[in-house]
């Protein structure tokens, strides 16, 4: 009886430690839903573009949101704007120079101000944002939703969990070597970036 009790306690501890293990969430979404929206103010209308060439992995422990690490990578060539002339300029050498700098990345350094309520939480993530080959430290406010066991609901055949990450932050294009101090009458210096991403952690 005593042996059974010890075994049960050991099993409970082992299960708890397994559940608390960090999981790797892959942000390459086969459904193509993950997206980034970028917005620049301009005189006639604001320039809104999107990108969906997103990949990267985030290692997170849903029970310890401050223990999060990883990197999100955006294929710069997947950035599109509806106007074909602007699209050409956007990818050209004066703007993003996507042939020389094909990736835009955000690498997590640490997480502060975490607030958690059941499977949802908010935090400020300090990380390194790299655009057009220039890396800068930025702090972005994120909201995170953990969806345990919901991976299969998205149409795949694998069981697993989902991690939904949302953030909106602003950068100054001049600081990243994009026409610094130029064309300010045509396009604002400030770029608003909005990310909506879902990462999958398949089980088994």
């Amino acid at each position, binding site marked *: 009886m005593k042996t059974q009790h010890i075994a049960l306690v050991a099993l409970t501890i082992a299960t708890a430690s397994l559940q608390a293990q960090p999981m790797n969430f892959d942000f390459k979404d086969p459904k193509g839903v*993950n997206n980034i929206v970028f917005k620049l103010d301009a005189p006639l*209308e604001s320039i809104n573009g999107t990108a969906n060439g997103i990949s990267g992995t985030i290692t997170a422990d849903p029970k310890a949101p401050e223990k999060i690490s990883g990197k999100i990578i955006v294929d710069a060539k997947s950035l*599109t704007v*509806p106007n074909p002339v602007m699209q050409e300029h956007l990818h050209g050498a004066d703007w993003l120079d996507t042939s020389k700098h094909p990736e835009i990345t955000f690498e997590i350094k640490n997480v502060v101000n975490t607030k958690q309520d059941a499977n949802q939480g908010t935090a400020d993530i300090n990380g390194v944002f790299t655009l057009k080959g220039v890396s800068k430290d930025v702090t972005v406010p994120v909201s995170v939703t953990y969806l345990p066991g919901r991976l299969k609901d*998205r149409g795949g055949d694998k069981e697993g969990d989902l991690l939904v990450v949302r953030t909106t932050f602003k950068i100054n294009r001049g600081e990243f070597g994009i026409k610094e101090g130029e064309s300010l009458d045509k396009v604002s210096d400030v770029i608003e970036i909005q990310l*909506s991403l*879902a990462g999958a952690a398949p089980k088994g």
Partner: protein
Amino acid sequence: MSAPRPARAVIAIGTAVILLSVVLWAVLGANMGWTKSYIEIPKQDEVTGIDYTEKVNRFVPGVDLLVPAIGAGFVCVFAGIIILKRKPKTHITTS
């Protein structure tokens, strides 16, 4: 005296360009912004709640095409009016 034929034709072409541009612009979406080669349909992922857009290829002319087209039309109309107002050359013959 009737107006010279080339002048009337230029005015007619200019008027047609203006009308056609406005009608095409209005029919294709009356877009007050820049010309677009696609439109975006808002969608939402049922499981994650993520808002995203689906791109549909469609030409939507903006004011960057409308304004030059109307301008070109007005240039034609004014050119025609100038030709019309020119006094016809008179040949004075002495006997």
